[in-house]
């Protein structure tokens, strides 16, 4: 099997949760995860954006063969948010993570357009938390994705929990939406693959909110052909990051 890459982890000391690189690496080694996308923790997503971005950058620099850092900025900071993302992406972060519920904006509001335009200019993927009413819904992501067809959007945990019915129709509307498997049981993942194709479903864990033990157990229980498994478990996120061979 080719390398396993987790598209959704958090590293740092947050308000609700914390996870340091060595703990995450230990878990990754234990469960056979080669690399991971690391995002800032809750507090740094909400307000201390630069602190979180630098933490991710430094973590990724210390383990360049294991981590890809994603940067965040609260769109309410306006031009300063764009500047911070441009800085962080210039210094080596590989994508943008936004959390509309935590950052207090409607997912598809014009407020976020300047950040999406930056993602388009620099050709980096954008990861959105979804599943929380009222601001983080899959259909709002579809609306944004239809407006920016050149940007690749990752739908964090596929609308889980109660917007699972929306996730596949949203991804069918906008072909530039990719689905993160975290929190999702085998059945939902196999349905997603059947509905939108194996090249648009990405393995993720959302650790430390979830755990690699639980999420890898779920993925082991998901029956997939070898070539599909390789795509979902790592190939697709590597392609979005421009890392595919």
């Amino acid at each position, binding site marked *: 099997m080719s390398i396993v890459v987790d598209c959704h982890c958090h590293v740092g000391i947050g308000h609700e949760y914390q996870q340091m690189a060595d703990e995450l690496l230990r878990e990754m080694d234990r469960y056979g995860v080669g690399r991971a996308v690391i995002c800032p923790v809750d507090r740094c997503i909400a307000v201390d954006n630069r602190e979180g971005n630098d933490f991710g950058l430094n973590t990724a620099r210390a383990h360049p063969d294991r981590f890809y850092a994603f940067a965040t900025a609260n769109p309410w900071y306006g031009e300063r948010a764009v500047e911070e993302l441009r800085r962080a992406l210039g210094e080596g972060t590989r994508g943008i993570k936004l959390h509309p519920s935590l950052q207090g904006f409607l997912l598809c509001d014009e407020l976020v357009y300047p950040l999406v335009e930056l993602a388009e200019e620099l050709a980096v993927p954008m990861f959105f938390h979804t599943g929380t009413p009222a601001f983080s819904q899959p259909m709002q992501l579809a609306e944004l994705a239809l407006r920016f067809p050149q940007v690749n959007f990752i739908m964090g945990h596929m609308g889980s929990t109660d917007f699972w019915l929306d996730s596949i129709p949203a991804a069918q509307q906008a072909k530039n939406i990719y689905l993160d498997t975290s929190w999702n049981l085998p059945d939902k993942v196999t349905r997603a693959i059947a509905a939108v194709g194996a090249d648009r479903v990405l393995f993720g864990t959302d650790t430390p909110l979830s755990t690699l033990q*639980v999420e890898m157990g*779920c993925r082991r229980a998901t029956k997939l052909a070898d070539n599909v498994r390789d795509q979902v478990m790592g190939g697709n996120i590597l392609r979005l990051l421009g890392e595919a061979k």
Partner: protein
Amino acid sequence: MTIVDAHTHMPGQAFSMISGFEPQKFVEMMDANDVDKAWVFTLDGLYFDPAPHNDLLKEFCSVDPNRLIPFCTVRPRYPNAIDELHRCVTELGMKGVKLHPWAQCFSPLEAFMDELGEEMQSLGLPVEFHDGTPPYSSPLQIAHFAMKHPKLRVILGHAGLHDLWKEAIYSAERCPNIYLIPSGMPAHGLRQALERLSVERFLFGSDAGFGDPYWQPFQLEKIRSLYLSSEEEALILGENAERILAES
């Protein structure tokens, strides 16, 4: 150790992803996961008239009545809700009640909930609510209902799900008659909840029968991944549920 899954559904036709699951297959699923007993709720009866589905549930559970424990449902808004509750207890031998505010189109704060709450309390029936999804199923809305009926055992079937698990903790801290089933609560939230609440307040539940057959191992794994003491694990996985029914 006795393992009791305190949140399962008889697979239905209306909304289940595993329609046509025979009772024997349900028991086989439990065997495969070493689950000894299940509290079983209707699924279709949440969307349609409950009475015929309470009958069907009773029949489903009669395949193995020592292991499949039926909980009835009623539509709180229906004028016959109290009558149906009595029928389920006296004629069908139901052991508890399942309510799903958004599927059944009611808020836990509506006036008709007062009488239903009093009846369930006087009959000694535990009631399990779907929770975690606004507008009608927030833990603190259910807590307000629970406060009015302090002897009624109120179980939050998802402990707030992903977004409101902290609200579930606050609810349980506020109301000693609230119990939590951490199906839908992230592992991280469960860890925090266990630091703040007595272990007697937690029940294992999976939502099995609603969807993926992997629900049961998934939720078991979440509890086992916390590496609790064997005494604590035994309480959560079965003893607390057994105690609640024994005291009812």
